[in-house]
């Protein structure tokens, strides 16, 4: 007997995802949707708070990438305190923040690849769920699991010394940073047991693991859940990859620039957010292309499609190989997110090494302030993609308006496309959903590393619900894992 399961709104995005699949007369996939059934509320309840609290308070919406929210908010508040739009911070403040950010990119990418994605690659989509998780990885390939744990630890320790805590620190403050790096802290990363050179080496090893998997599973990696799309990110003014600061750039699926050299302070002129009645997550799009054609992808794949080069040698070499694979055209293959993510991991390790050797981290002015403004926008490339924070304050220094476009929100349309493609490829014409089919849909979602716990191998407790309906929208089957 059919039944309908409803998940009530719960707080924060990490949590529950729901997929619905509609069939036509011939049991072909008519429509698939990824529903985000959670309500956030941060934009509302931040109102009335002192503006300098934003970097500390808003980051609480995430436990995986709080640093990204911390820094995006801090960048927005920099504008408000007259510390410029990324060009006036002291060298110490900017470099400490960059170190914090690249530590975050490193740990988050590592978490995703080793803990969340690698079980699929190691065991296959149809492996039993009870082994398809990080514990299974540890049993099957101890070295891979140890690498994952130690690399993530390294990133977390970098966050701790720059932000004060591994999760939800307070390092970035209005107009700068509140601490230097000590020589002891620096040396622990440069000379310790699992030091930065080890991290660079392991990043390369992880990349080779993936490339090897790609060689052996070319059809799956290249074709599964693939679809053409535009791509958006910030890039450095000269076109280099820069995950901390830059100008907005977007390319279409052929590589034509549809947005270029745009200051993110003007993002509202270029980006709008659509709403749909079946999801709490909005659907951002480029205004000049409209809702239907203006959606875009963000995150590692998008960033490697928008930038001209990567400004560190080892990652640049990998970037050249990545771009050559699609003959210089944008790469539209969803599963190549993993490849792009690991190139960024290597890049992050190289950037951290350069920063750790920079004496500006040890001494120098921490804060700068100027003429106060009533509005500020901060944008950063978070691990999962472009993250927008926008605040307006009143005359009493309280936040009057907040608008957040979170990375996963930018990928809303693309994830729905990916789910649709995955459903077509795996379930077309079939009346019964099997667990491997469901996992395949999750694999497509997982490639985007969305900030939902449905993207995790929660040791057998994945809160993903799939509803199969006939042409009259009657529920044929409901599966929850």
């Amino acid at each position, binding site marked *: 007997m059919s039944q309908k399961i409803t998940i009530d709104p719960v707080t924060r995005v990490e949590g529950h995802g729901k997929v619905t699949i509609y069939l036509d007369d011939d049991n072909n996939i008519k429509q698939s949707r990824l529903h985000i059934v959670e309500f956030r509320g941060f934009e509302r309840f931040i109102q009335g708070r*002192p503006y300098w609290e934003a970097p*500390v308070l808003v980051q609480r919406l995430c436990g995986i990438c709080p640093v990204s929210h911390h820094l995006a908010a801090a960048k927005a508040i920099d504008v408000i305190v007259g510390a410029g739009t990324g060009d006036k911070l002291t060298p110490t403040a900017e470099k400490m923040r960059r170190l914090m950010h690249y530590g975050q990119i490193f740990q988050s990418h590592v978490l995703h690849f080793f803990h969340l994605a690698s079980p699929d690659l190691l065991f296959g989509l149809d492996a039993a769920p009870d082994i398809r998780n990080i514990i299974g990885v540890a049993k099957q390939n101890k070295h891979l699991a140890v690498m994952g744990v130690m690399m993530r630890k390294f990133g977390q320790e970098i966050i701790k010394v720059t932000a*004060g805590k591994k999760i939800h620190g*307070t390092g970035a403050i209005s107009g700068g940073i*509140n601490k230097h790096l000590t020589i002891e802290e620096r040396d622990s990363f440069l000379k310790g047991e699992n030091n930065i050179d080890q991290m660079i080496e392991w990043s390369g090893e992880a990349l080779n693991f993936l490339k090897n998997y790609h060689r052996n599973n070319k059809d799956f990696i290249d074709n599964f859940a693939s679809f053409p799309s535009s791509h958006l990110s910030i890039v450095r003014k000269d076109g280099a990859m820069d995950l901390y600061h830059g100008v907005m750039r977007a390319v279409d699926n052929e590589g034509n620039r549809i947005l270029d050299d745009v200051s993110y302070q003007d993002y509202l002129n270029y980006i709008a957010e659509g709403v749909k009645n079946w999801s709490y997550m909005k659907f951002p799009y480029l205004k000049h292309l409209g809702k239907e054609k203006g959606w875009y992808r963000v995150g590692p794949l998008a960033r490697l499609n928008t930038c001209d080069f990567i400004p560190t040698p080892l990652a640049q070499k990998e970037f050249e190989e990545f771009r050559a694979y699609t003959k210089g055209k944008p790469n539209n293959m969803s599963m190549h997110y993993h490849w792009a993510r690991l190139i960024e991991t290597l890049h992050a390790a190289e950037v951290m090494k350069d920063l750790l050797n920079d004496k500006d981290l040890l001494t120098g002015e921490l804060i700068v302030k100027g003429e106060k403004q009533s509005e500020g926008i901060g944008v950063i490339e978070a691990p999962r993609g472009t993250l927008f924070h926008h605040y307006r304050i009143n005359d009493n220094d309280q936040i009057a308006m907040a608008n957040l476009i979170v990375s996963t929100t930018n990928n809303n349309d693309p994830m729905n496309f990916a789910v649709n493609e995955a459903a077509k490829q795996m379930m077309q014409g079939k009346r019964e959903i099997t667990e491997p089919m469901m996992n395949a849909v999750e694999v497509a979602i997982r490639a985007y590393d969305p900030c939902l716990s449905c993207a995790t191998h929660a040791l057998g407790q994945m809160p993903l619900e799939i509803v199969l309906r006939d042409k009259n929208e009657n529920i044929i089957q409901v599966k929850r894992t």
Partner: protein
Amino acid sequence: MDKSIKIKIDGKGIIAKEGQTIVEAAEENGIYIPTLCHLKGIIPSGSCRICNVKVNGRFLTACTTKIHDGFEIENNSPEITELRKIIIETLFVSGNHYCPACEKSGNCILQALAYQYRIMIPRFPYIYEQREIDASSPKLILERNRCVLCKRCVRTIKTDDGKNYFAIEGRGHKARIILDEELAKTMTEEKAMKAMENCPVGCILKKETGFIKPIGERKYDKESISKVCVK
């Protein structure tokens, strides 16, 4: 020369000076008695009751009670500890305390007391009282959600000619801290900073100075309040 007085705290004999309060005598002898509304150097008010001890069988506030020969004081007994926990929990449920994003976290006496007494969750239901923030003054924000009505600000922050910047308005659960609108306009940076420092919680916030002190370097980050206070 000060006259010495012999008293006992939790059975331990100590020698203190005549005229000292129990809190002062205890501190001088390395014994921690918690305080919240009390601030060294000002006349104690004994309003928060967290320093309650039992003196010869009677409950008294240690910050206001001067020592006398023969005092036998219970400070660390299960009964007193339980009483203090109840007071701390009551303060938590009657305000809206959200430590994670509070500027005072790590420097907050209420938070430090909760850690000291290992309070995981209050036994009483939260009241979720609607309290308004006053951000109208040029230098300070009154975050009334966190106010514990200790009156430290009222008692210590005054103009050069002795006028109060702060006052308590209303009674009972409607009592709230207010700041004189006119005097606030001429408040100096130093006085504003002092007001924030003297506030034991995160109610009085100096504008535009948030989170300057990194986590890990705050007063109660490394040691419990009992160790910090008896050094």
